[in-house]
């Protein structure tokens, strides 16, 4: 399906534990140029550790990492890789006392073929704040500047750790557009996110990471299909007990006349529902949002673990 030879990032069987606490167990992934990979997972799933390990900020116990065809262990020494890498970490703050333009000027000086300081200001969309110090920017503006700096060297491989944290809707959409442009330019992008809508919007592939294990991977659509759950809603005269007794119904909520059911066997549920209530109207069946699919996946893995324990 994808050519494996020119992967921008290739991670094989990565293991990492702190003392007895296992953070990553056997993580394998790859990203090709022009592909956006989203890593989803609850807090403490190991997302940031995974990114840090890939970037060599955290030492791993075993496994192999190749960035742009080169082994990662040589990265500390390899300026060539760092020229082609863009990074936006979750904890990222610049010198509080330097202005937007000064930060861009400094950062762009590190790269041979990068953007000019003025272009970076434009990428951040901070033309009106050129002389503002970093400490005086809003949370969203800081994120935009950090994002622009990640692109300073016109990178081939970009890591974005929770890039839209603290951004308002407009800033988030503009960042999504920029990620879309990176993809068109053939840049490989790895991003972690809490916003599942973000993964749905941006990613070609989604990895769900839970307790250091990839529990699911696929396109956002495939991931959704992984859970057969559907949401059924309608106006019904049936009472709660009768509704919960229907085949496949897992959850029930009621808003005035309108009821909402979560079903693991939607066809069976609908069939029984129609038989039981002739007055039923305004029937609607839809798939669960990625957010819920993802919650069910991670909850599922927790339940099995608890059973195992």
């Amino acid at each position, binding site marked *: 399906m994808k050519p494996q030879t020119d992967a921008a990032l290739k991670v094989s069987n990565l293991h990492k534990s702190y003392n007895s606490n296992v953070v990553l167990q056997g993580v394998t992934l790859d990203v090709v140029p022009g592909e956006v990979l989203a890593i989803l997972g609850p807090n403490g799933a190991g997302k940031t550790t995974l990114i840090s390990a890939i970037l060599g900020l955290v030492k791993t116990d075993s496994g192999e990492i190749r960035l742009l065809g080169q082994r990662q262990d040589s990265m500390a020494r390899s300026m060539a890789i*760092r020229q082609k890498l863009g990074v936006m*970490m979750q904890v*990222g*703050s610049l010198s509080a006392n*330097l202005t937007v333009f000064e930060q861009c000027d400094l*950062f762009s000086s*590190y790269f041979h073929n990068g953007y000019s300081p003025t272009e970076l200001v434009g990428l951040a969309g901070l033309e009106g704040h050129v002389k503002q110090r970093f400490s005086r920017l809003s949370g969203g503006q800081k994120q935009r500047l950090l994002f622009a700096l990640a692109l300073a060297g016109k990178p081939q491989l970009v890591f974005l750790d929770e890039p839209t944290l603290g951004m308002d809707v407009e800033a988030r959409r503009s960042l999504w557009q920029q990620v879309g442009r990176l993809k068109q330019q053939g840049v490989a992008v790895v991003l972690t996110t809490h916003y599942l809508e973000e993964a749905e919007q941006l990613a070609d592939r989604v990895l769900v990471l839970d307790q250091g294990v990839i529990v699911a991977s696929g396109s956002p659509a495939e991931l959704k299909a992984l859970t057969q759950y559907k949401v059924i809603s309608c106006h019904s005269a049936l009472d709660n007990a009768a509704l919960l007794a229907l085949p496949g119904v897992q959850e029930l909520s009621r808003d005035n006349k309108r009821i909402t059911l979560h079903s693991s066997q939607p066809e069976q549920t609908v069939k029984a529902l129609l038989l039981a209530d002739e007055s039923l109207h305004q029937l609607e069946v839809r798939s669960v949002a990625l957010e819920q699919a993802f919650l069910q996946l991670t909850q599922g893995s927790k339940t099995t673990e608890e059973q195992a324990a």
Partner: protein
Amino acid sequence: MSTAAIYRKEAWYDLISVWRTPGFVIPSLAFPLMFYLFFGVVFNTGAASTYMLVTYACFGIMGPAMFNFAMNIASDRAHGWLTLKRLSPMPVPAYLLAKFSTALVFSLVIIVALFTVAALFADVRLHSAQWFLLAMVLLLGTLPFALIGLILGLTLSDKAAPGVVNLLYLPMAFLSGLWLPIHLLPTVLQQASWIWPSYHLSQLGLKVIDMDQGHALWLHLLVLVVSSVLLAALAVWSFKRLTGQKA
């Protein structure tokens, strides 16, 4: 962009970033000046003023060197700025040299300010060669303290760094005879003062004006060079430990 340009920009932006922190600049410059004006000009005259010019200048250059490194590196680490820089193609020496050049600028400003006060208000008279030599000793003497600051900045959290630097800075200054002349300290403390780089630096400075304790020049130089080399090795080790290049 050429490598030289990176070094230049890094140094320039480090300097203006520090310069825009009045909470750092004002005490750094005011303390040595204030102390010298008080003890060296108002309460003393003649030889004592000359002696104290050297010791308070030593005191003055130590502070910014240690604080600038320790606090700014600890804070760059805490806020992820150092991580971003390390993942970028920025050469690490550019970052360290920038911090060192900022410390040198502070040293130079303090030296000029103290020399001016000494010449104008305390009537301190030295040959131009002595002024020059003294300034050189003090500028070069910034290095070991910058290294101490670097090690602290690489190992301490941003919250702990200022406190620990003060805990080291103030006793070290006192025990090296920078506040009270060293010969007024108890003999035990005078002997113990040999462990402090600041003692040897002040003795080198005092040698320029012929007011030192009379130990051999090479001894002070040797201690300063050896301690700088050891501190540099420790700094490299701390850096490698921090960046996980050593398990």
